[in-house]
């Protein structure tokens, strides 16, 4: 008996020992061997990597006026595993977020832990919703701070500023080209939630603070932009052109002071804009420049010392057969000096200037002026235009290219070429970005003027500028472009519109005027281009008559704004008369 009881005791003890050993083994197994795995699972359940979003940098004009900034909004998300009362939640969310109840119940079904219910909820709506959720003790709905881009000036400067997508990535304009500076760097923080879904601050883990985006300062002056926008609107009403572009640029630095295109769109209503309205025609539209291109032929011939400004060239009395094809002038001219070829805009004279230097040299000058390559401005989608090499020229190309045919250039290239003349022959890269600063104003980088090359000698540039003074006079083609008190060097252009099907469109013209003032010390260069302007009669549809007066009005206001001192001795110019309108209503 005694032995049996001992055995029983021993067996019980053994049983307990085995049992506790098993427990101990399990404990060791869970706590030591499987520690990493289960700790990871636990962390996965409670630890979250919370993103801390960086704010996108602002875009400002040359006077630090805000062009694009951010307004706070919230993204409403749900964690289906934390929802405690779906029945009460759905009507509340439906009313606050304006989402149909059916859609909400579909979204909240299942046990997904991250459901985006709505983005871009205004701050006030989010605060009210939070209060209601708290009052009704509803759990599982979270708010993530976000922001949306706002453009206070609406459609003004829309093509230059551009816009962002819903993920805050720039997809057009400076928003796209300066993306790396504007975007900033998002931060993060590891946090733990309790059962109620609230963060336990005590258990905050690793954290990286976000770096907000840099501020981009443009060279654009909103005051000048406003002048340009108003005048382009007037031009659109008066002449109802299909497209229009006006650019103002500072020749010494290449800074674009104003740039406006029509048609345009409201940046705050970009989803409603048509693709045609979104194109920045100043950099992505190609056109035949017409007579404005004659400055290239004249500059090349003068720079090569083939002619002097007073050298006379016989202009064949208005009709010249070259290569079996006739070349006309709009008036019959006999002998014209090089100066008068520009002033009177003689096609035959310009053709003879180009012939005097030869195909290859002329082509080289065209390329040296920057045609056929992108200017390098900080705007996306810029095209280089089309300049064919002499090998693919026809027999008559040398007579057609000097008058701006058979070439495709952008308005920006054209104004850069004129800025080269104004700038003593130096081609400067046009630019729209002045500097990059941090949000507290520390300069991160400054964009200095980049002189690409000396295209022509300063003396040649001065000669061309001097000749172009005559264009804006009673003798020239653009008397209406004059500005009281200022000397202006400019050139008109009237080109028949190229048809996409080949050939030219009858009765459709691209009229333009490029000029700078004051002529002796140019402060700005201006370009006005109207595509298919409508005038009472086609005879009035000339650059000097349509684009010239627009330039005059823009330049006069710009000169006043820039406080350029007018010369009192300069008499009143001829009245900048407006060309008779079509039936376009005047507003």
């Amino acid at each position, binding site marked *: 008996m005694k032995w049996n009881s001992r055995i029983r005791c021993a067996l019980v003890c053994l049983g307990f020992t085995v049992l506790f050993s098993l427990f101990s083994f399990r404990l060791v197994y869970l706590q030591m061997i499987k520690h990493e795995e289960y700790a990871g699972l636990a962390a996965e359940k409670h630890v979250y990597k919370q993103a801390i979003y960086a704010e996108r940098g602002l875009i400002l004009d040359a006077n630090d006026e805000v062009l694009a900034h951010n307004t*706070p909004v919230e993204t409403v998300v749900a964690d289906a595993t934390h929802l405690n009362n779906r029945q009460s939640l759905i009507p509340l969310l439906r009313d606050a977020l304006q989402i149909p109840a059916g859609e909400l119940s579909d979204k909240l079904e299942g046990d997904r832990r991250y459901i985006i219910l709505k983005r871009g909820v205004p701050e006030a709506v989010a605060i009210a919703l939070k209060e209601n959720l708290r009052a009704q003790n509803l759990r599982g709905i979270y708010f993530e*701070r976000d922001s949306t881009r706002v453009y*206070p*000036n*609406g459609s003004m400067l829309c093509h230059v500023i551009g816009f962002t997508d819903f993920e805050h990535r720039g997809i057009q304009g400076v928003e796209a080209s300066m993306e790396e500076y504007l975007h900033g760097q998002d931060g993060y923080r590891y946090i733990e939630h309790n059962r109620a879904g609230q*963060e*336990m601050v*005590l258990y905050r883990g690793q954290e990286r603070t976000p770096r907000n985006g840099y501020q981009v300062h443009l060279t654009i002056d909103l005051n000048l932009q*406003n002048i340009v926008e108003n005048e382009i609107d007037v031009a659109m009403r008066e002449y109802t052109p299909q497209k229009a572009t006006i650019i103002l640029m500072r020749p010494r630095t290449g800074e674009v002071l104003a740039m406006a295109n029509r048609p345009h769109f409201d940046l705050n209503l970009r989803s409603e804009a048509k693709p045609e309205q979104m194109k920045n025609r100043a950099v992505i539209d190609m056109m035949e420049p017409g007579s404005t291109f004659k400055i290239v032929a004249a500059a090349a011939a003068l720079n090569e010392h083939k002619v002097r400004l007073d050298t006379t060239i016989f202009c064949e009395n208005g009709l010249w057969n070259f290569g079996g094809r006739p070349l006309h002038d709009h008036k019959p001219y006999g002998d014209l000096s090089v100066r008068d070829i520009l002033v009177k805009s003689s096609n035959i004279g310009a053709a003879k200037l180009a012939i005097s230097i030869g195909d290859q040299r002329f082509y080289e000058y065209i390329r040296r002026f920057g045609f056929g390559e992108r200017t390098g401005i900080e705007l996306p989608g810029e095209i280089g235009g089309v300049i064919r090499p002499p090998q693919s020229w026809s027999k008559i190309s040398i007579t057609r290219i000097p008058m701006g045919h058979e070439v495709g250039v952008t308005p920006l290239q054209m104004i850069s070429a004129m800025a080269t003349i104004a700038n003593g022959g130096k081609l400067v890269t046009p630019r729209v970005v002045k500097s990059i600063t941090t949000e507290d104003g520390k300069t991160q980088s400054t964009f200095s003027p980049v002189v690409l090359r000396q295209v022509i000698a300063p003396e040649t540039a001065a000669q061309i500028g001097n000749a172009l003074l005559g264009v804006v006079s009673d003798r020239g083609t653009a008397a209406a472009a004059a500005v009281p008190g200022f000397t202006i060097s400019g050139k008109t252009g009237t080109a028949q519109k190229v048809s996409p099907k080949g050939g030219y469109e009858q009765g459709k013209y691209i009229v333009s005027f490029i000029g700078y003032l004051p002529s002796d010390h140019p402060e700005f260069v201006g370009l006005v281009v109207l595509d298919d302007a409508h005038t009472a009669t086609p005879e009035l549809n000339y650059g000097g008559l349509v684009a010239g007066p627009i330039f005059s009005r823009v330049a006069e206001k710009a000169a006043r704004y820039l406080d350029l001192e007018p010369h009192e001795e300069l008499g009143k110019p001829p009245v900048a008369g407006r060309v008779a309108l079509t039936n376009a209503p005047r507003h």
Partner: protein
Amino acid sequence: MHAPRRKAFNSVNAASLARWIVITAFLALTGLVYVYLTLQLYHLGEHKKALENELTSLRAQNNVASVQIAALTSRSAMQRRLKEGYLKMVPISERSIVRLSAPPHPLGEDAVQPVANKRAGR
């Protein structure tokens, strides 16, 4: 008679007892302090979170206000108000403008700068 009676009592080592009491009290107090401090940490965490939320909310309100200011002072808004007659613009007459002829640009940064105040150099 005295000796056996004495044996019936267990002697108490007061010093040792006191030591244990102190140690126990110290441990208990440490535990309590630990719990108290942990709770304080929780509360401070909650307070920190509340302050962070308040700060974020204030920043958001500030941003909203900035956006409103920018929208109301934007060029298009000003022009609208001008059209509506809330604002009036009076052109500055030519006689009221005093122009100072700008001095020529110095050759280098070290060049002598002309100043309006003749005493500036003293």
